[in-house]
């Protein structure tokens, strides 16, 4: 039986990692290579590395970090941020990535999803969607939370799934970094709207939040602050969740 996953999020900013609150106020949370090694030694199910800034050398920075990390971490590697075409994706696969994450480009040119899926398979393409809850509905944002989009969440999910996305990474900007729990309504909505695996992000503060997300139907939970602020590690999360009936990998 396929197991659920716990995925630490690592936000890459230059040579360091940062953590935000509602996508603002970045704090230094470590060195990307060291941090990846630690997560890998703590039996993380997957490593998720997202380049945060957009500048001329941003992609090359991501690419070089992936090469370094791939040399020493032997767990599935999912990377993104600054990917705008299939050439970027292919270079990242060669560098050691197993999956790539696309976000902003999916609004302007969803055929990129198809192109990458054709080369590497749908399972290698994760589409990330950032949302805020405004005036009673979910508003999508691209550009790291900077640009609001008019397309509805449901419509955008349909578009990316039809274009060949393998997984959805749904992130609540409102809950990001507050450590008060995931947006479970958002999660439920997305799980109902598609049949591909869903990863929830934004808001995990303790292990019970992870359990809640799995109960609602998340295939995987992504955690940033949980592991950076708090005496927690993926290993401890696993032990706790196993005591509460969640099926996680055993190694």
């Amino acid at each position: 039986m396929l197991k659920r996953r716990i995925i630490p999020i690592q936000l890459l900013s230059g040579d360091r990692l940062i953590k935000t609150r509602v996508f603002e106020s970045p704090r230094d949370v470590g060195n990307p290579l060291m941090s990846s090694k630690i997560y890998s030694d703590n039996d993380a199910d997957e490593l998720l590395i997202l380049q945060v800034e957009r500048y001329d050398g941003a992609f090359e920075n991501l690419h070089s970090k992936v090469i370094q990390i791939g040399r020493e971490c032997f767990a599935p590697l999912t990377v993104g941020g600054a990917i705008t075409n299939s050439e970027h994706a292919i270079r990242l696969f060669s560098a050691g990535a197993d999956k790539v994450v696309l976000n902003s480009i999916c609004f302007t040119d969803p055929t990129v999803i198809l192109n990458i899926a054709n080369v590497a398979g749908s399972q290698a393409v994760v589409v990330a969607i950032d949302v805020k809850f405004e005036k009673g509905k979910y508003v999508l944002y691209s550009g790291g939370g900077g640009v609001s989009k008019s397309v509805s969440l449901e419509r955008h999910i349909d578009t990316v799934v039809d274009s060949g996305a393998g997984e959805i990474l749904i992130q609540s900007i409102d809950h990001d970094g507050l450590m008060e729990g995931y947006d479970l309504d958002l999660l439920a909505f997305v799980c109902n709207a598609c049949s591909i695996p869903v990863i929830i992000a934004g808001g995990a503060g303790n292990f019970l939040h992870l359990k809640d997300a799995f109960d609602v139907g998340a295939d995987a939970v992504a955690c940033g602050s949980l592991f950076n602020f708090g005496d927690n590690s993926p290993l401890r999360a696993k032990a706790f969740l196993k005591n509460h009936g969640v099926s996680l990998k055993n190694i």
Partner: protein
Amino acid sequence: MTIGIIDIGVGNIGSVVNAVYNQGWDSISITKPEDLGSVSHLIIPGVGSFSFIMKRLRELNLDASICDFASQGSPILGICLGMQILGDAGSEGFHSLGLGLISGEVNLINRTAGLPLPHVGWNDVAEVNNHPLLDGVKPGVDFYFVNSYCFSATNRENVILETEYGECFPAMIAKKNVVGMQFHPEKSQRNGLRLLDNFCLWDGAC
């Protein structure tokens, strides 16, 4: 000990190369038959499709060389698609013949259970037959899989580990000095690295 890793320009073999290096072994890329003369072990990583990879191997005459390498008794490990081509034939792409080193056929995973394909993620394995490569690997642990097609072994004695997704299919197969792993040991952390290490230490006997 030098480990040869097949590199025919299809897909990313970097993770396998890194994993072998990390465990302390030296490896070289195998791009043509002559390269096989200098290695003690051979790893066949596999990305792409059955028919495409077999076509490439034939173009480079590597298919025959791999079979010769096997007949010398030198250890061979096929990973993922690399395991599948050890079989007699596969239907991915168009129907094509495999290396024929372990008898069996490769077809799409049974979809009647309604489960999405490919089979991606951590799944547990059950031991069917013992094998020296399993030394130090606890029973019932999970490995990382990415596959839409699966192997169907002619002889159950060649199935070492099996997993379940839609149907039961082999996670690891073996015959004499030839072994195949459907999962990715280079992505399966401690247990996967242990298996790779055991392979690099193995003399091919069982």
